[in-house]
């Protein structure tokens, strides 16, 4: 009987795990130190290539990988992650994902840069699609350009809040001594998500000519 209760409790814990969110606090990038003055001084990041086994990059802390960049490359100091797209087989598709967390979500903007780091296209945070657990942006590459992808905070959105409504269910084992049954209960969850200059980020090469087949257009 006791063993059965333990099994029931473990099952509840596993099931409840579908709806829980781990406590997380976004780290803010440090802009107080020495800043690079040119794009070429920044360390390049190779984006994660999706595989059948791991279709998405693991989220990483933006503040731990971003570097400070200032004038004359940028009009005001900002922290930037610079991804190297030159080795990708094109056409290609990337997904930039900004996980949503009550402890802070990166309000990111993406700039696609040419060979000499001039801006070909800018996509602000409002271009991202809000999903259940992340803001995502699909980037398609097809004709040799761009060469780099820069991810940085979108100052127009930093400091704002967005609401997130969901539900949380729990299953409690009730035992009368003769009968044990599962009582389901739940409630609405409502959180205010702060948009920040820091947070987690995952950049994944979903499709390129180097990994054709992992997510390429296909028949239904």
């Amino acid at each position, binding site marked *: 009987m006791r063993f059965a209760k333990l099994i029931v409790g473990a099952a509840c814990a596993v099931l409840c795990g579908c709806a829980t969110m781990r406590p997380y606090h976004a780290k803010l990038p440090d802009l107080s130190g020495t800043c690079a003055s040119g794009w070429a001084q920044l360390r390049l990041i190779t984006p994660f290539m999706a595989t059948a086994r791991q279709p998405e990059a693991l989220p990483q802390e933006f503040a731990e990988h971003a570097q400070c960049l200032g004038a004359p490359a940028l009009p005001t100091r900002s922290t930037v992650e610079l991804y190297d797209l030159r080795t990708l087989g094109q056409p290609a598709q990337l997904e930039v994902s900004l996980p949503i967390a009550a402890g802070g979500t990166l309000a990111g903007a993406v700039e696609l840069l040419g060979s000499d780091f001039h801006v070909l296209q800018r996509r602000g945070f409002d271009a991202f699609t809000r999903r259940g657990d992340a803001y995502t942006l699909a980037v398609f590459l097809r004709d040799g350009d761009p060469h780099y992808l820069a991810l940085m905070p979108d100052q127009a959105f930093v400091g704002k809040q967005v609401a997130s*409504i969901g*539900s*949380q269910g729990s299953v409690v084992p009730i035992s009368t001594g003769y009968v044990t049954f599962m009582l389901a209960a*739940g409630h609405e969850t409502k959180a205010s998500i702060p948009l920040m200059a820091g947070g987690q980020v995952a950049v994944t090469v979903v499709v390129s000519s180097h990994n054709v087949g992992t997510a390429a257009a296909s*028949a*239904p």
Partner: protein
Amino acid sequence: MAFALINRGHFDDCRGFIHQGENMRYLKNGLAALGLAVLLSGCVSPLPKQQAFDRDGHARVKTIHVMPMPKVETQVLMMNNPAGSFGLIGGLIAAGQAESKQQRLLALYAKEPIHPREYFQTELTKDLVARGYAVVWPTLNESVAVEHDRSGLRDKYAPVSDADAILDVDLNFFGFASGGAGHDSPYRPTATAVARLMSSDGTQTYFTDYFAYNNIFNSKTAVTVEPDPGYVYPGFGDLEHAGMKSEAGLKLALSELAKKLASEL
């Protein structure tokens, strides 16, 4: 999965287990709610793979042939209903409560009933046209059975000659939903949809995605639209008391869902 199967009439497969009639209808609604919650929660993954639309890469897509949508019912759903804990009887009670609330809601809107499918089609057409597309809606022949997969989308697509692409859309859930029992889990207008854009010959997928207005089902990947705070009802009585204003909330849910879908194309 159960929700999609039930709504498509495949629930008839279960007739060997239960009696037809009222109990059948209650159980159908109860299982529909359970199936929807499981499907959208992301704890299982029967949904087809999502795929973003490369608008520049498919710039020649100017005209979209939208496949006829199945009929949509306005529903009332309480997630995590405690009554559902008490076996089949409890499940029937919970389903009966949902059925009763659904009937009261329809009676409330009897003077100016909302027709979700038609309303959504009108809104989607308007939004797609605003995005620069011409839209073709063929006439639906209700008597012809259409095969759908577990997500609510069609299994296969016949080629079309009147458009550059085929859009398949299904409204999975439409109505009011709450996250649980009690006033801290209010009823809010809720709508979910799945959509897929295919090449005009029906062989290549251009786009697949899921949408949720009021993501009370905790779908991790669905494109999410947060519900308007102007339409929040702590109890079902409050919803009834609001009268036709609550119907405006339902219309807003459909409008926002259509707008979001069009914005992804």
